[in-house]
């Protein structure tokens, strides 16, 4: 029992450290990709002393800069909620990752270590639950700032998030029809056949449509362009975090990037075989590598979309979510279940 607890504590802390580092470097990646798409160089100065290291120290410098920024709490703000809101959006974002498997099992110091923190019978519902709780941080940030832009941004953002949460949930239901379980570990294990290439998306071609719906909905859920209406800077200044500065602003940014990483990981797990890949049966250390590569590819795709597609208008956004994605995912469920009914 104590051993198990110790293992969990270590795994949790390691995962959190990896996630925080990953967030820092995804921001750098975003700036590099943006620069690359716009034919610029991007951050390339910050290094160690004389060595520039392609700007690899940029996130560290950014972090230090943000710590030393002035922490402003507006006079008319609702003090308690104003401080609570960024925490409420960061904590659920950090909590999702414990159900995602990132490898099979490896042996370390004569211990067999499963490469996931925990598995639960309702794993995917746990993820959905945390996604739906994430709305509070944004709503309360908008409300407590006592600023018109914040309030409008918070309301718009939460309405957008709940609208696309529906499409997200319903597209996951189509996947569940094929997997027959909510346990993410089982979902990944089932995709291990055919030299580790029996990924759901190859195995069940109908899931390509589902993946497109899922991906669009998760972009909207994480407030990325073309769905970044909540912080549409030309209309709403900075949306719900207009009044936030210093580390509280960092917390919102961290939550946003964490959500992007989580969404990509879930997409990898559900559609692209998780950590499965060629030779992973013989070399279990390849599991986390495959997983990271797939997640990074999906994150890159999100960035590519961000710098290619212009922003939606709010009425277009709501119309797209409710009148296209929602009926499309319902139709998908009907088609998938009919297919399963006649599967032998």
């Amino acid at each position, binding site marked *: 029992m104590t051993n198990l607890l110790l293992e969990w504590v270590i795994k949790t802390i390691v995962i959190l450290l990896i996630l925080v580092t990953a967030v820092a470097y995804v921001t750098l990646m975003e700036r590099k990709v943006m620069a690359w798409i716009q034919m610029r160089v991007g951050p390339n100065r910050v290094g160690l002393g004389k060595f520039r290291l392609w700007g690899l120290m940029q996130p560290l410098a950014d972090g230090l800069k943000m710590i030393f920024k002035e922490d402003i709490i507006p006079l008319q703000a609702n003090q308690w909620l104003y401080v609570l809101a960024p925490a409420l959006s960061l904590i659920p974002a950090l909590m999702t990752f414990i159900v995602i498997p990132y490898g099979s099992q490896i042996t370390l110091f004569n211990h067999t270590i499963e490469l996931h923190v925990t598995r639960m019978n309702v794993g995917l519902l746990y993820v959905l639950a945390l996604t739906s709780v994430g709305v*509070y941080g944004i709503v309360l940030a908008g409300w407590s700032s006592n600023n018109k832009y914040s*309030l409008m941004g918070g309301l718009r953002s939460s309405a957008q998030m709940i609208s696309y949460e529906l499409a997200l949930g319903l597209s996951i239901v189509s996947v569940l029809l094929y997997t027959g*379980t909510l346990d993410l570990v089982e979902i990944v294990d089932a995709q291990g056949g055919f030299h580790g290439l029996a990924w759901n998306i190859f195995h069940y071609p109908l899931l390509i449509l589902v993946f497109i719906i899922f991906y669009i909905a998760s972009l909207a859920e994480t407030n990325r362009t073309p769905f970044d209406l909540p912080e549409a800077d030309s209309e709403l200044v900075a949306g719900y975090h207009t009044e936030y500065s210093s580390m509280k602003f960092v917390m919102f940014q961290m939550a946003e990037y964490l959500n992007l990483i989580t969404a990509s990981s879930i997409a990898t797990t559900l559609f692209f075989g998780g950590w499965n890949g060629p030779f992973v049966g013989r070399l279990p250390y390849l599991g986390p590598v495959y997983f990271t590569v797939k997640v990074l590819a999906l994150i890159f795709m999100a960035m590519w979309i961000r710098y290619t597609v212009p922003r939606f208008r709010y009425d277009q956004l709501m119309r797209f979510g409710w009148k296209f994605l929602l009926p499309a995912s319902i139709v998908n469920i009907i088609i998938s279940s009919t297919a399963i009914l006649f599967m032998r």
Partner: protein
Amino acid sequence: MWQEKVLFIVFAVIAIASALNILLQRSPLYSALSLIGTLLSLSALYLTVHAQFIAAVQIVVYAGAIMVLFIFVIMLLNVPKDQPQIEKQKGLRYLAIPFAGLMIAEMFYVLRPIRLTTLPIQPGNAEQAVGTTWSIGTALFTDYLLPFEVTSVLILMALVGAMVLARREGD
């Protein structure tokens, strides 16, 4: 298993404290946030009796949807703070205390026979155990089919009714 008792007490205290906070707060927004605290700790308590699926649904439906609706309404209407209650009969307050004591004594009396009943051991095949998604799904769509189908009509009625009530003509 003292750990389970400690967990129960922790979550029970959180649930009761936030439930009391609903009454103590004057602003409806804070009351709603305290209710979310109660809902989350109840969800943890559901886990201690192996109701995993219901625990997750509790967060998805209650904390993630119903309370969002409440908070939206509070924010949209900009609801004023609660006024203090005007007591019409002053003496009743003191009558309340012996009655409360009576009720608590009665509760202890009723609960006495089951004070030692503990949770049955779960069967070895954990997938088929009560509270998993599989057990909920098979029972809901066979034995409890009628309530399930009636629910869909109920939801439709609520949708139409609420739309008609909340929209103004020409809105």
